[in-house]
């Protein structure tokens, strides 16, 4: 089995998912080559062949140009599998490459069982094993699903590629994440409000518990999108990554993008009416209760200690 691994680079830096691609190739016993639109000054620690196109010349986001470059490598290497990270880069590019290759595309692979990719369904409540019926396939890998035991080492053998197409999309640069306000990455206790809080007034009870525990309050994305809580308190892939001693998730279902931001917490308590909520997978304690009753009651007792 031959796999082409699509590495990622942004704004002068390699991204972390690249190591997971290598770990995946190793797990399935594939022979691999790598592709990167990036820069010679930041090469992945990879001992294999790397096809490199220049990020300044190709644009860091220019899907059709990147697609054409990948297809050139596919033509040359004839891999059975092209593997991306399931990231804003990967999920944008993978279907384009798969369509051109007339290959099946399987998104957000979390495991491989009997050579079948396994993917989550319904917010990870269910899983399915996928049977690919084409000779070639394109996968995107869920962040964190495949990790290497050790940091990879090595220096790639580089072959340069030049772009020979222009895209219809013009990339005009990056806008940095909003800074300022609370820095949850330093908090020792975080109590987070999820959509289960139901209405903006109930944020107060979550904030009150956080205060009673001498910590800060955070939130899941829908609560931030609804503007009940400011963005710098959002926990997850598109918010803060936190590692407190205690994380209390109130009415948070535990979507992968939320877990990615808080799974390094030392101790996790989840309060949820749904006993099967995926947050249960990372919680040390799952309290099955209505947060509107449980949270104020807990706050009172903690205050009276």
């Amino acid at each position: 089995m031959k796999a082409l691994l699509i590495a990622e680079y942004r704004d002068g830096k390699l991204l972390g998912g690249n190591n997971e691609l290598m770990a995946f190739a190793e797990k399935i016993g594939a022979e691999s080559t790598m592709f990167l639109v990036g820069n010679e000054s930041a090469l992945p620690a990879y001992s294999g062949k790397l096809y490199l196109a220049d990020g300044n010349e190709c644009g860091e986001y220019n899907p059709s140009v990147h697609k054409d470059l990948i297809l050139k490598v596919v033509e040359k290497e004839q891999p059975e599998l092209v593997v991306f990270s399931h990231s804003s880069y990967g999920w944008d590019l993978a279907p384009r490459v798969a369509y051109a290759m007339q290959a099946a595309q399987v998104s957000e692979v979390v495991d491989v069982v009997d050579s079948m990719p396994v993917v989550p369904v319904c917010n990870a409540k269910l899983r399915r094993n996928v049977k690919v019926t084409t000779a070639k396939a394109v996968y995107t890998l869920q962040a964190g699903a495949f990790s290497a035991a050790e940091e990879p080492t090595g220096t790639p053998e580089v072959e340069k590629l030049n772009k020979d197409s222009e895209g219809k999309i013009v990339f005009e640069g990056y806008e940095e994440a909003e800074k300022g306000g609370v820095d949850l990455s330093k908090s020792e206790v975080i109590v987070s409000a999820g959509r289960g809080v139901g209405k903006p007034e109930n944020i107060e009870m979550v904030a009150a518990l956080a205060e009673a525990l001498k910590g800060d309050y955070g939130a899941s994305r829908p609560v931030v999108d609804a503007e009940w809580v400011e963005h710098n308190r959002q926990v997850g892939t598109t918010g803060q990554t936190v590692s407190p001693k205690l994380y209390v998730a109130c009415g948070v279902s535990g979507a992968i993008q939320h877990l990615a931001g808080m799974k390094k917490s030392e101790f996790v308590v989840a309060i949820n009416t749904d006993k099967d909520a995926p947050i249960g997978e990372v919680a040390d304690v799952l309290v099955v209760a209505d947060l509107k009753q449980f949270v104020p009651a807990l706050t009172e007792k903690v205050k009276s200690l």
Partner: protein
Amino acid sequence: MKILVCIKQVPDMESKFKVNSENTWYDSGDLAWRMNEYDEYAVEQAVQLKEQQGDADLTVLCIGPDRVKETMKKALAMGCDRGAHLQDDESHKREPLEIASIIAEYARDKEFDVVFTGMQSQDRGSGQVGVLLGEILDMSCVTTVIEFGFEAGEIKVKRELEGGVKAKVKTTTPAVLTCQLGLNTPRYPTLPNIMKAKKKELLSSPAADLLKVDSRQNTQTMYFPEKKGVGLVLEGEIADLTDELIKILKEKTGVLA
């Protein structure tokens, strides 16, 4: 301007799911159905663009069994002009390429300037349909859009990247945009608009007539993941639960020390 918005009907994610008798999908009985969350943002953006343009025509499209018409009515009440229901009792089995191909055949001669989809569906979650649609129809496609603007024939959007970073991108029509959470604030249909929506065109036609590709993948088995959680589950009276939790926090964390 002609605008298309594609929506999917999905179960409420807090439902108690069961696997169907073939072990290939969740059982569709006893579920509450709603509009895919990402698609609510797509509908809202489509309606806003229509309002900005004035003389635009906005179609909402959905592939699925008859029950999806309920969800389509919500989109009509939010401001879409007409509904195209592509009837398909087997839509849950269709892989993203098949869904994209059906939409593409529907759209092929209709000259839509802008197509909105959600960035992913909450159940299948492949995040592929919008991008594949763009590839099939050779339209430019930008994914994960959290800010959308249209001026002087130019589409200016921001894509959301990891860590809250955004990429500023522009392109021209015709284009497909896949919408991310937080793009806008989806409106609630008002009662008068719900009444008005009842009179809007909502035509059903068979999706199978538009399916021009073979599937490239299927579901071998669907199942509940093994519970890895070694955590403790507490159930019971609130007063007991709070006491129990405080005891655990004292023992296991330094927080209440």
